[in-house]
């Protein structure tokens, strides 16, 4: 066993590690906080390229699970703890933090970095008052992934833009519980970035919205009722057991094992489910846009990007910018392509990537781009809204509120509460928190 030998080696090895660290004082060390998603882990494996180009910069990684990471970087930046030089944050944080003056503007990245190449919806989401505050590492929307083999067996054909009615029909046809195949897998784990990202985006496709123009929560509207009823009925009839604790990762694992007929989730999942090394169904995956309700011109897809940003107050701004420039450059995309193939390139950030004929051969490239371009953070719903954000509301209070609402919806999915109970509890708790935060003067 490895760890026992480590145990014996510990003292010598660990102390030599420290001597090495101390000996390298002359170089600049930056600390990068990031999530443990596949693309970031791949980047850590490719650091040899960065080290070769910038031998004077040493990068320390702090890789954490998303929720832990968010909690730690938020605490740190809000208290000006200064523990990190580069933070991986999402499109939810960037506008709020940028407005607070907590981030260093990236407008002075060199021209070769080519800011105009960024996809417009992504760039807009990272710009506050005309200044770019974060560089996108990868961008994503959501889409429908399905098992083409099972669809064929069921005698159905997935349209490019399916309706919820069709999804229901297909889920019914593909479900074969005795064989361990569930027609549809959707997020159920409570969290604003988990089930609420999906359900909020889904609600947009039913014409619902979080708040009216006076910031009154809208969970008592028929649109929300219909959203939740559709979600629950799909999952109760055709979903896997334990769905209320399934997030992105759990569903990905299920889909890769061939246990899901359809899965509506992040576009980045496409490269994982088509990877024959880890996915049993790699050859049989088809892609379509996220579903919409008949007659409503919004698909239930979101818009998200994981971005790299520099907290104001770090002493290593120059080194941090060098690192961000490398990690989000066109060359980085080429580097990944040369080592791991085009399908594994971090997607959804640059127009040039989608113009690249080699990338166009990747089966999910077109749908990903189409999904990203169809998302509109400033007009998420067909109704008027006072906020920005597709699957979130870019106000500081949203994380807490949406996580609590997510708990209610998760309880409804687990069957411990009815849909009506969950909606009315969500309505009152949101009203409470908004009152507390002083939105109604």
């Amino acid at each position, binding site marked *: 066993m490895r760890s026992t030998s480590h145990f014996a080696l510990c003292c010598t090895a660990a102390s030599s590690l420290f001597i090495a660290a101390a000996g390298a004082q002359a170089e600049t060390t930056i600390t990068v906080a990031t999530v443990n998603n596949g693309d970031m882990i791949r980047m850590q494996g490719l650091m040899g390229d960065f080290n070769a180009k910038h031998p004077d910069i040493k990068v320390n990684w702090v890789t954490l699970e998303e929720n832990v990471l968010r*909690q730690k970087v*938020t*605490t740190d930046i*809000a*208290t000006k703890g200064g523990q990190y030089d580069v933070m991986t944050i999402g499109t939810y944080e960037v506008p*709020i933090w940028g407005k*607070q003056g907590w981030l260093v503007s990236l407008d002075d990245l060199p021209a070769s970095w080519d800011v105009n190449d960024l996809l417009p919806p992504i760039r807009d989401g990272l710009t506050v008052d005309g200044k770019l505050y974060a560089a996108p590492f990868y961008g994503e929307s959501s889409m429908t992934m399905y098992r083409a083999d099972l669809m064929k067996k069921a005698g159905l054909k997935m349209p490019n833009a399916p309706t919820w009615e069709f999804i229901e029909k297909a889920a019914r046809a593909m479900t074969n519980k005795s064989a*361990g195949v569930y027609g549809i897998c959707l997020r159920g*784990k*409570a*969290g604003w970035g988990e089930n609420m990202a999906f359900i909020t985006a889904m609600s947009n496709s039913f014409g619902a919205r979080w708040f009216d123009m006076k910031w009154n929560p809208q969970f008592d509207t028929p649109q929300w009722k219909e959203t939740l009823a559709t979600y629950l009925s799909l999952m109760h009839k055709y979903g*896997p*057991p*334990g*769905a*209320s*604790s399934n997030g992105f990762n759990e569903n990905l*694992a*299920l889909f890769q094992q061939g*246990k899901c007929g359809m899965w509506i989730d992040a576009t980045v999942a496409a490269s994982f489910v088509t990877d024959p090394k880890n996915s049993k169904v790699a050859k049989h995956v088809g892609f379509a846009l996220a579903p919409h309700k008949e007659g409503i011109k919004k698909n239930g897809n979101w818009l998200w990007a994981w971005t790299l940003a520099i907290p104001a107050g770090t002493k290593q701004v120059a080194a941090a910018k060098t690192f961000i420039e490398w990690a989000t450059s066109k060359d980085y995309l080429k580097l990944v392509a040369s080592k791991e193939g085009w399908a594994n390139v971090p997607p959804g950030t640059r127009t040039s990537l989608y113009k690249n004929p080699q990338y166009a051969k990747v089966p999910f490239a077109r749908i990903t781009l189409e999904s990203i371009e169809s998302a509109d953070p400033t007009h998420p719903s067909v109704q008027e809204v006072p906020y920005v954000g597709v699957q979130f509301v870019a106000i*500081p*209070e949203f*994380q*807490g*509120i949406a*996580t*609590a609402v997510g*708990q*209610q919806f*998760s*309880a409804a*999915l*687990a*069957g*411990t*509460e009815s849909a009506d109970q*969950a909606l009315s*509890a969500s309505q009152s*708790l949101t009203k*409470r*928190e908004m009152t*507390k*935060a*002083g939105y109604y003067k």
Partner: protein
Amino acid sequence: MATQHSRVTARWMISPSVVLLLGWMIVPLAMTIYFSFLNYNLLNPGPHNWIGLQNYYFFLTDPAFTTALWNTIVLVVGVLLITTVGGVALAVLLDQPMWGQGIVRILVIAPFFVMPTVSALVWKNMLMNPVNGLFGHLATALGLHPIDFLAHLPLFSIIVIVAWQWLPFATLILLTSMQSLDSEQIEAAEMDGASAVNRFIFVTLPHLARSIAVVILIQTIFLLSVFAEILVTTNGGPGNASTNITYLVYAQSLLQFDVGGGSAGGIVAVVLANIVAIFLMRMIGKNLEA
């Protein structure tokens, strides 16, 4: 026996511990009390207004609060019950003459060494997950429907996980205590014709009383602030079904970044913990009087 001089020395020797702990208690506590009266959200910098008792009002009237209070009690009492009853049973069993006692002890003690985060991850993913978990496979093999533990029995699942971690601790203390039981006492009872059950009730249990008291006291201290297990497995849900007070305070201060509200919740939790502490000390402290 103690002279005036040694009393002074004694006070002097105890002071580092007392001063340090006093500092560790008072400084954060004072800051927390101060924050609890402010409108202080980490994400909204700028002046933090004095808002009086509003944070307390919102925390105490939160419908989740009563649920969390109840869950905390159920969790603590549930784990205590399982670990003390199970611990006594295991101690009695392991105290019998047998082969390979050392190996069994190694097996039983092991969960105590496992990090709470790791044990929660293992139970959640590898045992309780209805699709890929072992319990699910077991149920399917027996022709049953797999139970989705974390969704349908969330609090129970957490009690099981936490009890698994603390059972070894209880067993060890109780076993040590069993081994110190005078075997002549048992034999005398045996001679008098006392049945095995009666011997257990009238000789063994009273002997174990002090150890049981210790087990309850120490475990309560740790169980009141069970947190990692909930965070990793259920996130307090579904709904609020597995939210305890500690988790509720966490949700306020680190999910909503509402330092004011979280501080008020923290103070409420401290008050509640102290009520429990006073009860415990009264009931059990007496038992510990040497």
